[in-house]
């Protein structure tokens, strides 16, 4: 029963001092006797939320991940970089020096666009992927996640279409959902987003009279698919987007973490007017600073700065100056190289263990980044299997998280960034037992195929 006043019968928090001590917002003497028309829904503000907030719910899946950070559990779920690889003593000294010598700047409000020195240094980072930009084109944000939020905020009206790969980054889907966009997936293959499929999708959407605002793509070492957009396809994708008048949102947190050869040229290096580029220090350095950035055409950049100021006033100066000092005084390229080698070893452990323990599954072999995308043996549902995995002390992210629609039940994302190679092998070994148990159950009951997924899977930050 839904009523016009679902919160009726409950007191607002101002009237219930007891809420401070954890008492539910229920009146001490409930008026609901046998004739009481309304109970309580435990949230006196339920009637007040914006429509978009109703989709923001804690899910059973999210609760199951609560065990993932326990040491007994091998988590192949998270997207956390392996920070033990960083020279923490050096960073501690840098932070001390930043506060000691530039404290009145570091601890003060800063520019909404971000620290100018850091913006210049960001150009050096991006030059490794062929991007030639001006410091004025860069907007520093609180992680590239905030840049994603800002771009969506300034471009997407409710009902507008955002194109995204199938599958796509779960954190981006959450942003698009929050702005009530309609995400349409475009298939990818081993060479990334498929140009012909993009053309077809855009044409069909135009024919249907739909307004397509953004093409969101992770071209390098895709999260979750692990694939990379080939050099040949890059200009083709840009040409199609340009022809259809769609802005490309290039999300590139992993581009410098390739395991072989030089980085491919960024889409932004091939085209500056039609691309908003998102970069981040979270995967190549440390996510705790929460520093990412956007590079945008000048008019877009103006709006991004205004939107960012309204959201957060300015990004953290303390974080920016710490990163700036790190880039100026440390061998950051050497650090990235060390990370690449570390993650390559872990990738090898992952695909080796998959070949040994899960020969009936198939998976992508990423040439960089953090993730492999695993297709389960026929008939298995990764989401339904998760409780069994938690019991077996191994965690993964079910594939459904990476789709705006009901797809992905037969896939899971495995990450190899955080656990050591031995733990990765142990995790995959446990996973094989889980898959065997679930396969037996499914064949026993003859149940296979997808079931409907009705909850939204907003990830915790450590799953990004």
């Amino acid at each position, binding site marked *: 029963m839904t009523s016009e006043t679902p919160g009726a019968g409950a007191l607002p928090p101002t009237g219930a001092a007891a809420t401070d001590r954890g*008492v539910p917002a*229920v009146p*001490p003497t409930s008026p609901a006797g046998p*004739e009481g028309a309304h109970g309580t829904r*435990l949230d006196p503000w339920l009637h007040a939320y914006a429509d978009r907030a109703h989709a923001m719910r804690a899910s*059973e899946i999210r609760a199951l991940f609560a065990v993932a950070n326990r040491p007994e559990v091998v988590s192949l779920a998270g997207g956390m970089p392996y920070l033990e690889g960083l020279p923490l003593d050096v960073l501690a000294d840098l932070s001390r020096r930043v506060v000691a010598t530039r404290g009145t700047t570091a601890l003060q409000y800063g520019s909404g666009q971000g620290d100018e020195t850091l913006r210049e240094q960001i150009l050096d980072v991006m030059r490794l992927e062929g991007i030639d930009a001006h410091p004025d084109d860069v907007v520093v944000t609180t992680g590239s996640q905030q840049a994603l939020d800002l771009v969506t905020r300034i471009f997407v009206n409710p009902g507008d279409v955002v194109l995204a790969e199938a599958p796509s980054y779960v954190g981006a889907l959450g942003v698009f959902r929050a702005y009530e966009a309609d995400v349409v997936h475009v298939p990818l293959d081993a060479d990334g987003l498929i140009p012909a499929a993009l053309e077809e999708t855009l044409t069909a959407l135009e024919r249907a009279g739909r307004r397509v605002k953004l093409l969101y793509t992770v071209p390098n070492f895709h999260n979750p698919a692990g694939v990379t957009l080939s050099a040949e396809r890059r200009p083709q994708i840009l040409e199609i987007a340009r022809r259809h008048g769609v802005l490309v949102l290039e999300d590139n947190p992993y581009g410098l973490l390739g395991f072989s050869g030089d980085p491919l040229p960024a889409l932004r290096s091939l085209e500056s007017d039609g691309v908003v580029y998102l970069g981040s220090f979270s995967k190549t350095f440390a996510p705790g600073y929460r520093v990412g950035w956007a590079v945008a055409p000048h008019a877009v950049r103006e709006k991004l700065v205004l939107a960012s100021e309204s959201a957060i006033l300015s990004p953290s100066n303390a974080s920016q100056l710490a990163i700036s000092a790190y880039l100026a005084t440390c061998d950051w390229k050497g650090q990235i190289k060390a990370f690449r080698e570390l993650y390559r070893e872990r990738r090898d452990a992952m695909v080796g263990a998959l070949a040994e323990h899960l020969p009936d599954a198939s998976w992508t072999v990423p040439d960089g980044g953090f993730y492999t995308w695993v297709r389960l043996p026929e008939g298995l549902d990764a989401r*339904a299997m998760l409780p069994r995995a938690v019991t077996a002390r191994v965690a993964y992210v079910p594939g459904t998280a990476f789709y705006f629609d009901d797809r992905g039940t037969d896939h899971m994302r495995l990450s190899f960034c955080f656990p050591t190679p031995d733990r990765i092998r142990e995790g995959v070994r446990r996973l094989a037992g889980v898959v065997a148990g679930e396969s037996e159950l499914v064949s026993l009951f003859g*149940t296979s195929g997808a079931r409907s997924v009705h909850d939204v899977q907003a990830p915790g930050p450590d799953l990004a």
Partner: protein
Amino acid sequence: MREDRAVREDRAVTAAPGQGAPLLHAVGAAGPRVVVLAGGLSHERDVSLRSGRRVADALRGAGLEVTVHDVDADLLPVLAQTGPDLVWPLLHGATGEDGSVRDVLELLGLRYLGTDPRASRLAWSKPVAKTVVARAGLTTPEFVTLPQSLFRELGAGRVLDAIVGRLGLPLVVKPSRGGSALGVSLVREAGELARAMVDAFAYGDTALVERAVRGREVAVSVVEDVDGPRALPGVEIVTEGPYDYDARYNPGRTEYFTPARLSGAEAAAVAEMALAAHGALGLRHLSRTDLILDDDGVPHFLEVNVAPGMTETSLFPQAAVAAGHDLGVLYRSLVEIALGEAAVTRV
């Protein structure tokens, strides 16, 4: 943090846990020191962490010194070092509710709040609890409990047919152990039963299938005071769709009526069932019985919880507040009762 530890070490010396824990009267003006256990490695870890924080806050508000601890490799050394007056296991699922953590507390000679391990073990298994309360004369929906291996040995289709043939439809399928409605399905058509079994077996090797009873869902919490167990007002749960994890922990989809909209006779019947279940199973200090009140006013026992949820949206605290209790005062009185009993039984 560091200061905290120093204080605790200091206490450990004065409390001298090795020489026998102090009795109630020796606890002192500062009030008893309580360790709340929350977390654990179960599917309900998240719920337990939330319950633990809530109870700890309420107890602190009532003047007690409370620390919250996970069940991990540090726990036993910390308990040995700090020598708390009482441990309150607020663990949901697995070792927290099946009695085994309580067994360890007994091994260590620590006082704890709540049901002892033997009775926890009975209550934790839904089929065992149903059997015990049925023998005590309570009504509970007809059911079968089947391990996955039996379906393999006898052929799943034949067993499923027999279940529907005997119990009819609709049915409720649940893991035989566990809470928060994880792995629970309502089966309206025979074709849905296989999928429901798969979902339940994802949480454990044994599933319970019971006849679904039409009626109102009511949860009745029991708390003990110096005069013995007492039923709190029933909480009636009205949900759009199933009262599943989403409906339990996200305010909105579920409407709670506390007290439940019952006639005097109905209210007495549900209270009596909760007290009878509490007694028949030998539960202690607190419990929550979930039941269905059918259209004829007859309550049907579903399950009982020795560690009922204590989160912002949980049923036990709602019932306590509706009965006029301040949660801090109520939880403190439970602590005192547990300490008082311990003092008496130890002498």
